[in-house]
């Protein structure tokens, strides 16, 4: 049941009239009303949005983007190697797993970039620890208690314009990635349920009673302020969700539901710049083909639906979807028709605003392995740095605590 139409919403929110007040040079920028609006809505990122997809469990990159042209691929994977109808060919060398038809469609449209052999020095093969490294963007021998998106909030909102939902995870609990040193994002799985919590009369009134106080030193002020921001965020998210704006068909799966929720929030002009979402179950030590295939199918189809929704409101060009997993898997298959924990892996980028498309670097080197695993060629923090600097317009070095050479896909 849609509470408002999009037109009603524009009237209600006052944005339609606000856009009339825009200076003329902005109006003349060419991309039309939507660009102007998104710039206004997302002041901290200049209208750009990032969606991070975490494939938990260690997705097998070699059976995602398949180096069909490398004989070593087939000699290492006599049963697990994909061939024939199990593949969608991208070029003379690479194919996609055929379960990724959704992603392949976007690829053919020039809306996907693939980066091979992404990782970090001294790779850790524990799910837990490696994910910690990816989320904190730390070196493998450092333990950092904040996440890279959280630190992006610290940096981007340092002028005081901060709302927790500028970075939102679609889950009940928030990952380390969204926890900064000072500021944090918000985790929302079910806006209605969260809204019911803030509508508890005493909690609601306590939140509303908060007024800015110069002294933020005491925990009391911090807690009350956090509650006030939470109440405001939950109301805002609840207000912009459930309007049934989506026209696309998403897979019947929690991941599909959450990606659809992101699409609808974007379609309702939510002020969120960074979304974070996970798809779990990629730890395929046994019977990999079915399990991974099913998940990749959900992933690809959900992504295609997402792109379709965003295109319908001209938002696909200013949205970037970045997909990673905590590690890739061993090149040689194991005895249970599965693969064990590995190291370097493929990363996928999708969006209408990619400057470079297709396969961006050399194929994974299946010959020079370390402990049976692919060696990394691209540090994952180079990709973070590129996204932070070139896409979100942020201080990448400050956020990542070091200098990482950027790439030019955005």
């Amino acid at each position, binding site marked *: 049941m849609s509470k408002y139409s999009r037109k009603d919403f524009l009237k209600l929110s006052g944005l339609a009239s606000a856009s009339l007040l825009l200076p003329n040079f902005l109006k003349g920028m060419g991309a039309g009303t939507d660009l102007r609006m998104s710039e206004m809505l997302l002041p901290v990122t200049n209208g750009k949005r990032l969606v991070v997809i975490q494939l938990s469990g260690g997705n097998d990159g070699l059976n995602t983007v398949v180096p069909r042209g490398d004989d070593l691929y087939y000699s290492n994977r006599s049963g697990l190697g994909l061939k024939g109808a199990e593949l969608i060919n991208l070029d003379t060398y690479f194919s996609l797993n055929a379960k990724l038809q959704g992603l392949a469609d976007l690829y053919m449209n020039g809306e996907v970039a693939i980066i091979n052999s992404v990782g970090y020095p001294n790779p850790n093969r524990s799910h837990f620890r490696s994910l910690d490294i990816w989320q904190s963007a730390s070196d493998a021998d450092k333990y950092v208690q904040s996440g890279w998106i959280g630190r992006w909030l610290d940096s981007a909102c340092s002028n005081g314009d901060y709302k927790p939902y500028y970075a939102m995870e679609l889950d009940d*609990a928030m990952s380390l990635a969204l926890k900064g040193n000072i500021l944090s994002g918000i985790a929302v799985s079910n806006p209605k349920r969260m809204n019911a919590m803030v509508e*508890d009369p005493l909690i609601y009134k306590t939140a509303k009673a908060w007024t800015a106080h110069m002294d933020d030193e005491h*925990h009391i002020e911090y807690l009350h302020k956090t509650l006030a921001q*939470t109440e405001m965020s939950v109301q805002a998210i609840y207000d912009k969700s459930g309007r049934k704006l989506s026209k696309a068909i998403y897979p019947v*799966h929690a991941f599909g539901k959450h990606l659809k929720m992101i699409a609808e929030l974007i379609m309702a002009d939510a002020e969120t710049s960074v979304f974070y979402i996970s798809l779990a179950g990629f*730890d395929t030590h046994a019977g990999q083909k079915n*399990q991974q295939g099913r998940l990749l199918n959900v992933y690809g189809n959900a992504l295609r639906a997402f792109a379709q929704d965003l295109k319908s409101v001209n938002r696909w060009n200013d949205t970037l979807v970045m997909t990673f997993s905590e590690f890739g898997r061993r090149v040689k298959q194991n005895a249970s028709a599965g693969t064990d924990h590995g190291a370097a892996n493929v990363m996928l980028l999708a969006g209408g605003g990619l400057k470079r498309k297709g396969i961006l670097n050399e194929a994974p080197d299946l010959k020079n392995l370390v402990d049976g695993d692919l060696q990394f060629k691209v540090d994952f923090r180079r990709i973070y740095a590129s996204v932070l600097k070139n896409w979100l317009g942020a201080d990448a070095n400050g956020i990542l605590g070091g200098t990482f050479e950027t790439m030019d896909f955005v």
Partner: protein
Amino acid sequence: MKIKELHHLLYRAAFGPTPQMVKELKGMTREQVVNRLFDDAGRVQDLMIIPKPETNGKGEVGPLKTIGLILKSQKEKDLLNLAWIDRMTVAKASLREKMILFWHNHFATSAPFGWLMQVQHNTLRRLALGSFAEMLHEISKDPAMIIWLNNQQNKKNAPNENFAREVMELFTLGEGNGYTERDIKEAARAFTGWFVNQKGEFEFNEKQHDVDNKTVFGNTGNWNGNHIIDFLLTKQETATYLCRKIYKTFVNNTVDEKRVADLASRFRTSNYNIDDLMRHIFMSDWFYASENIGAVICSPVELIVRFKKLVQFQVDDKQQLAYQDLLGQTLFSPPNVAGWKGGRAWIDSSTLLFRLNIPTTIINSNAIKLNKRPAFEEKDRGEKPQKDQQVVVKSDWGVLVNYFKDVPAEQLTDEVIQFFITAPATRISSALIEQHVDTRTPQRRIITTIAAVMKLPEFQLI
């Protein structure tokens, strides 16, 4: 001691005031109360919930790294977790339990072997108020720690620096404080061959131990791991780092470096006597200074235990594990070896709202069924989006109702606030609380007043 000071002490040295404790300790001197808490903490009883895995004729449990063991281990760690929560709830030795919680966060370990985690837990349990020097020596030979920080891979010809690095960076000196990269490299060589054998016990493997000279902190010799630990214990930085952490946890999330320095010199001089340090803190006048009262954000586990102790809060095991997960602190699964950051890091929009909502679920006797995030090893369950399901929340308000039953209605709100909240009441409005109280019966009035106070952000401060 003053009643406010008693409540403050009980929040820090135990899991907060309960009617029974307050009745018993009210009117005693500070020294009497502190002695009582330490006497109660004196009793040590191992937590024994996980049976040792089956062994072969040689007492061996077989290769430690198999998926089967790891999967089973998650279930075992859950059992251990729940058993510990129960112990915290019922044990008289509250101070010992709080100290174990502190040490579990300090030597933050999450090795994928339930019974080895239990062994480590019982070591911390035994030494929680003993000698930190002894604890550090034992932990460096602890099987779960050796596996967790890869000392099992630390061999003569291929040293693994993980343990050597973290013992300096996180367990003693503090990051970048009083050691060099060279010290780490050389110390790692001293720990080579410190392994866990097939019986799941510490074993010194001489063949894998590097017997050449090592230079650590400027001392050259054929050092082994024991020497390195002793070197670390001679360094003042170790005492300072430990005392700063103790201060943050037990005194104030904001550190007073002068006090930390005083504590550190005492700790060092006493050869790291934890009992002496904690007694000294709880006996000091400055511990009761207004700026230190209500100045700590309660950890998720403490919050859960408080509800359990106060109103016999009970949900099924799955739900309880999900609470820990969603609030950000699952016992035996710290985020990494640096442990939980604590303080304001406990609080974000999601966790705060979740915390404030707990009293409502208790009053309503039901909550929405929560799901712990799936373990990495778990298969995708074809997760169809599900409708919200309800689970039962059990509670018993009898003790609290009885405690407040003689308080005149017009004083009830203030008395309840004074009982539960030690932080300044600057932002608390009694009138607002009273608007949300059910006054139909005296009993409902007491219960709903307490629940309302538990929903205040100040209830999160101890």
